[in-house]
């Protein structure tokens, strides 16, 4: 299982970033979204192919109001 935005998730290792986004309810077409896995940026163009390893930590970020 992987850790998604700091929470234990149902996403098993072997799924792609795009599949994990789908489980989160985030469309891969949605604008203003960025993904990091284990502290490295995963560019949008690699979401379909990037396979998540066991115990991967995935962060899904977007714009929030801020100074």
């Amino acid at each position, binding site marked *: 299982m992987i850790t998604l935005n700091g929470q234990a998730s149902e996403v098993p290792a072997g799924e792609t970033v795009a599949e994990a986004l789908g489980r989160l309810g985030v469309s891969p077409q949605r604008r203003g979204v960025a993904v990091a896995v284990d*502290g490295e940026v995963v560019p949008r163009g690699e979401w379909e192919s990037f396979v998540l390893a066991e115990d991967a930590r995935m962060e899904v970020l*977007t714009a929030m109001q*801020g*100074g």
Partner: protein
Amino acid sequence: MSTPSRSAHNGAAPPADALTIAGRELHSRLLLGTGGFSSLELLRDAIAASGSELVTVALRRIDPDARGSLTDVLSQCGVELLPNTAGCHTARDAVLTARLAREAFATDWIKLEVIGDEDTLLPDAPELLRAAEELVDEGFVVLPYTTDDPVLARRLVDVGCAAVMPLGSPIGSGMGIRNPYNIALIREAVDVPVVLDAGIGTASDAALAMELGCDAVMAASAIARAQDPERMARAMRAAVQAGRLARTAGRIPRRRYATASSPREGLAEFT
């Protein structure tokens, strides 16, 4: 310092006096932070009233259930996004956040914040400089939130920052510009735009920043947390324009004693 416009104008409208940062021309010298607005509608109204063309956003974990998309609202407003690295305490985190922001918003611009103290939110100078250098090397247009230290400002420009954003006082404090002398020194010390960031409490603070020679002012809490944010956005817009006009007009020197503004010649003698 950028050369003030010398073109004739009637005083009612500010002269064409664009600010250029890293090749991008901005006609508003007021940058707006999006934090603190209680609704996206209030934010939209304040952006319109402020005339700002560049607004900051933070990068946070997505909430798939959130109602309304900030990205969409800002896109409808026609403003450019300036992502920040707020909340980062190390150069490493700030650099990663900047890379994610570039990916999310397709912009090389980053407002670099590296915080060194939780109570004051003051910048961590060594980490800031390290992050700035790394991001410039990676091709970012770096606008660092910095202390009011002219030497640090110069070091940040030396590593390639496109502007510097010194604080007037701590973020959200509304204490205005605590050290106007240093802000004026920063203006003299660097040849990139100086954007007064943080501490603005009300319109006169923004005007003072411009009178000191700052090229622009960034306001967030002062507008978002005002009782009437839209009205305060209008006030800030006018203050930035007034301060800029006063700066470029050239103020009179301060003197200790009066200088009569009426002629002494022709004075009547009554006794």
